[in-house]
């Protein structure tokens, strides 16, 4: 099977969908001609294949980029726009949250807004908190939006293709750290369903719910814990909304213990939603307290030791798991 980085997988999805459907176009800052030239990047080579009529470089104008998508989607196109980094979601958020997500409802179901907003996210680049700030919880709190955060190149390809074909606005968040680690991606056409979590590892002792790059932290911890006789089940959410409650609840029913792992800051992060769902509908299964392993409640700092301190790691996850496995009933 071909091995691609997550950015390359995104690239392949964009290419396939643009070839399939002439209504698909992409727009954003540097999506055509950019300052970085690397085949690992999501929009690499697209302007060469599809031309500047379908690969639109925009000014530095996030509200206009998002509004372009809203208007063009209603008019029948399939916009895939890029907001360069997750913190700049703020600048596009009126168009995405007050418009893309609401205008269909406001029309009484007459209009639709089939658009995708792609964003890069994630700490680890020494760029600091104005470039690294995980805000998936914002989008996930907005009815009318779907929120997708793939962890593997294969999922990224299948999910992005589904997002482009979805009749609704989809926020698609790519962790940049995943661009540079190749993984297997089926060459052929396939769609990965939005709204379905994926059990990436089976285990009987504890359920770890995670998404995006944190999956790989979970894998690392799972391996080490396995050596100590603790079997972690890893639920890769893939889609935050609509949330696949069934998969989460079934796993917690099996293991009786829940840890949520995400890179975003702790308070108000999406781990809370998982906790609430399990406490509502899976309470009888629970044998032990809940644990969150998340970024601390600080902006992402630039200096390497500080930034490493920010990013959740295997040790923290292992400690959290052990705590509830040991103390739990």
């Amino acid at each position, binding site marked *: 099977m071909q091995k691609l980085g997550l950015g390359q997988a995104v690239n392949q999805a964009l290419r396939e969908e643009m070839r399939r459907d002439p209504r698909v*176009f992409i727009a954003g800052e540097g999506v055509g001609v950019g300052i970085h030239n690397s085949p690992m990047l999501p929009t690499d080579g697209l302007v060469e294949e599809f031309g500047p*009529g379908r690969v*639109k470089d*925009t*000014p530095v*104008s996030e*509200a*206009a980029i*998002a*509004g*372009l*998508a*809203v*208007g*063009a*989607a*209603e*008019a*029948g*196109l399939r*916009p895939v726009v890029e907001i360069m980094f997750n913190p700049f979601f703020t600048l596009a958020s*009126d*168009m995405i949250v*007050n*418009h893309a997500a609401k*205008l*269909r*409802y*406001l*029309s*009484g*179901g*007459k*209009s*639709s807004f*089939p658009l995708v907003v792609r964003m890069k996210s994630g700490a680890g680049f020494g760029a600091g908190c104005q470039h690294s700030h995980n805000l998936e919880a914002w989008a996930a709190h907005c*009815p*009318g939006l779907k929120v997708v955060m793939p962890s593997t190149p294969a999922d990224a390809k299948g999910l992005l293709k589904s997002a482009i074909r979805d*009749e*609704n606005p989809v926020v698609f968040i790519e962790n940049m750290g995943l661009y540079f680690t190749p993984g297997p991606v089926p060459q052929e056409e396939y769609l990965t369903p939005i709204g379905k979590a994926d059990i990436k590892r089976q285990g009987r002792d504890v359920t770890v719910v995670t998404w995006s790059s944190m999956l790989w932290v979970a894998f690392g911890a799972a391996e080490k814990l396995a050596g100590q006789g603790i079997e972690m089940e890893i639920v890769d959410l893939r889609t935050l909304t609509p949330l696949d409650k069934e998969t989460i609840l079934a796993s917690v029913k099996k293991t009786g213990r829940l840890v949520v792992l995400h890179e975003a800051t702790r308070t108000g992060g999406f781990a809370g939603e998982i906790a609430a769902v399990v406490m509502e509908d899976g309470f009888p299964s629970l044998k032990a307290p809940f644990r969150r392993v998340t970024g601390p409640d600080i902006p992402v700092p630039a200096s390497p030791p500080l930034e490493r301190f920010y990013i959740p790691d295997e040790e923290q996850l292992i400690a959290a798991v052990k705590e509830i496995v040991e103390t739990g009933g």
Partner: protein
Amino acid sequence: MQISADKKIEMLQTMILTRKFEDALAELCKIEGKIPGMMILCTGQEAVGSGACAALEPLDVIITNHRSHNHLLAKGADPGELMAEIFCKSTGCNKGKSGTLHLAVPEVCAPCTTTVVGGSLPIAVGQAFAQQYRQQDRVTVCFFGDGAADEGSFHESLNLASLWQLPVIFVCENNLYAGAQRFDEHARVKDLAQRASAYAMPGRIVDGNDVLAVYQATMEARQSAVTGGGPTLIECKTYRCRGHGETDQQLYQPRDEIEKWQKKCPIPRLSDELVSQGLITPDGLKEMETRAGDIVDQAVRFAEESPYPLPEEALDDVFA
């Protein structure tokens, strides 16, 4: 440019219909519990939407804002469905989800109305982009107020539209107030049309109470847009004769200013002209008014008699 008698009469009709429609609302909204939410009317500004929409083809798009009734009626929206939506009834054009503030009528290519000030502009850019992408001979008209011209979205939208030479016409309804702020209290520039120069875009100043002038300016902008000449900013100078909304007592608007502008009302201005030119008889005018009144009465009756949506319908229409 010669404007046909039919066109002029059509515009007069639209203005009269809008006025009757809103006069009825002005009364109805005083009745406790009759109409939910704010009531935002455009009395005295009817020439803008009526003139601009008269210059459009049916498949041209408009994107409008909180002060939308005239724009939508002028584009051909069904008065009954509009009225029912304003009443928040299930027969309204948006099944009661939108109410008076976000009326969306995709059937007449008025697919989105936003009450986020400045929100109409980026969306119009997107619509115009789709028209250009598909090489349609269509344009998008974007309505917004003088206040909206201070939002960041105005700037980003005009820049992008000009850069890509999109077929969009930005119609700024400068009614001299944004909420309680007089125009010169929120912008130091004399004419908003001047702002077009920041994007190398043509900017035109039009007497917004002269429906024929608005029509003509829009025709020209449309012609330019469909022949690759790109966007135009048209500033229509007009006046908000009523308060921002119906609960606004207009304490900050000088009485004599209001009266001065009331005398410039666009409706008699055109009807007097048509009568004096013999394009319509006084009886014909009266008949036109009666007809508009009937349409509005019927719309109100339809709205009044329609049921509210069922509570659980609130859950519908979030996702496609």
